[in-house]
């Protein structure tokens, strides 16, 4: 057993892990280690070879690999240690981590931990598609890795289920590599991805988009042969008699992402069943003191820019925690801080943070349930409005962000966030 003590242990070396580690180091933490299973750092970014990364954050238009290299360089320069090919087996509320790599088993005591494990793609079994079990069915991200990293074309005649951004980008990518894209099937009445991607990935190549449709059957022995799609009603139930049979050898699934929190759950961190990520406060601290969460394991972000900006805040909070922790024993008797819960209501699917433990300026990120035109965002307590903002247009594909201020005089236990139509 290799024993080690570090200031901050970051679990996951993708964009969130790198950004939080850099920011923790900048905020004065001495030893910061980023653990990752892969032999490379940057997580999913190296396979996202399309551009559009970094515009909001840096003003520069980058591709995924460029964005990753920029952060890896910064991390190395500032002295963050990147420990790759290392698997985290577990961690607990005392912030003791068990890790494994070719050198053996590590027992690491961290003064603070940052969770940045990312998310996983939902599979056929998450959306329950009946039928045969042939080869040729991939999640969109796996197909993206095969094409962009390993030079393997997953198939020739491809149907894509789900119009999220990954699905749309894969439609274009496969088209450019010579595959025949038979269409993108979306169960909702509107595309889940950004309008930009609908135009540049589908319309540009005349790829059909089947809205209000879903896959209802899969046929194939050995390799996939045929997929049936059906129209759905307003309750998203397939309408019989609307079946269309599509001959294809490949089905890509872009049906959503799930934050990866198996380790968090084992450690006893409370999970929000709306986001499937840890419940956090305004400093991105989870329900276990000294353990912070950021990136796609906290909430599935739609672009890397906001993800990195939030991850930097989490890293900074982790560094601050270490310094305040040194003095904590003296102030331990100080009475417990009031905790304010934030509850999503009308039209809002979730809000982060889920709770607030101090007063001042607080950033709320949230997603709306369905696309809307002009509406009013309203933050209230006991029907008393404390913040209001006009939203010109909102779409579930975009995370919204607002800054509110909670004053000391507010004697409230709960904040409600809702949308009112205008």
């Amino acid at each position, binding site marked *: 057993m290799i024993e080690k003590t570090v200031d901050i242990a970051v679990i996951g070396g993708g964009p969130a892990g790198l950004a939080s580690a850099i920011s923790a180091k900048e905020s004065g933490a001495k030893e910061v280690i980023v653990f990752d299973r892969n032999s490379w750092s940057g997580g999913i970014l*190296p396979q996202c070879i399309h*551009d559009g990364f970094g515009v909001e954050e840096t003003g520069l238009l980058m591709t995924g*690999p460029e964005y990753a290299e920029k952060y890896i360089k910064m991390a190395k320069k500032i002295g963050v240690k990147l420990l790759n090919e290392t698997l985290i087996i577990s961690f607990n509320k005392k912030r003791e981590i068990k890790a494994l790599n070719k050198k053996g088993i590590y027992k690491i005591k961290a003064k603070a931990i940052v969770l940045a494990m990312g998310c996983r793609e939902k599979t056929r079994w998450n959306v329950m598609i009946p039928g045969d079990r042939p080869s040729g069915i991939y999640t969109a991200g796996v197909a993206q890795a095969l094409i962009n*990293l390993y*030079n393997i074309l997953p198939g020739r005649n491809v149907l894509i289920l789900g119009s999220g951004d990954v699905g749309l980008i894969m439609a274009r990518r496969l088209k450019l590599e010579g595959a025949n894209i038979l269409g993108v099937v979306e169960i909702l009445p509107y595309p889940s991805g950004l309008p930009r991607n609908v135009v540049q990935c589908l319309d540009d190549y005349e790829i059909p988009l089947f809205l209000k449709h879903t896959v209802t059957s899969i046929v194939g022995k050995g390799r996939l042969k045929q997929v049936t799609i059906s129209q759905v009603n307003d309750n998203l139930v397939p309408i019989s008699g609307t079946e269309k049979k599509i001959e294809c050898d490949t089905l890509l699934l872009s049906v959503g992402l799930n934050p990866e929190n198996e380790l968090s759950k084992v450690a006893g961190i409370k999970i929000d069943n709306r986001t499937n990520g840890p419940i956090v406060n305004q400093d991105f601290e989870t329900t276990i003191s000294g353990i912070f969460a950021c990136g796609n394991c906290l909430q599935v972000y739609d672009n890397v820019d906001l993800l990195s900006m939030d991850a930097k805040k989490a890293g900074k909070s982790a560094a601050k925690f270490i310094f305040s922790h040194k003095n904590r024993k003296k102030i331990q008797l100080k009475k417990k801080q009031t905790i304010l819960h934030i509850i999503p209501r009308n039209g809002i699917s979730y809000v982060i943070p889920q709770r607030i433990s101090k007063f001042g300026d607080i950033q709320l990120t949230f997603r709306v349930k369905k696309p809307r035109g002009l509406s009013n965002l309203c933050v209230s307590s006991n029907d008393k409005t404390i913040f209001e903002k006009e939203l010109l*247009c909102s779409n579930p*594909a975009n995370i919204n962000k607002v800054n509110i201020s909670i004053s000391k005089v507010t004697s409230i236990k709960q904040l409600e966030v809702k949308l009112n139509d205008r």
Partner: protein
Amino acid sequence: MIVEKRITCIICPIGCEILVKIEDGKCSSMEGIKCKKGEEYVINEVLNPKRMLTTSVLVENGIWPLLSVKSSEPIPKEKLFDALKEIKNTTIKAPVNSGQIIIKNVAETGICIIATKSVKDSTKNNGKTILV
């Protein structure tokens, strides 16, 4: 001759649907436009549509089999597949650095194809490559 085109504006998340009339190579009218930036986008999109091209080229002796690349600036839409054909016939020897020019004047557009990733030489990495 007047040609009508329907364009989805991609400047902001609203995604306005715009109906444009094109007369003698010029936009003569626009319906549904709400902002100046959108107007510029629609004019370019109708008269001279361009796209950034991102793809990959084969690498010899690399720790990765592929190198991700991009066009140095947006390429006229009708030249995209010519550019892709040229990129497909290109192989590059590792090591490659991000930002390195891989093809000059791709498909005679005056635009370069540049590396967006660094790929190390596998022969200097004990022949080790990254596998699926």
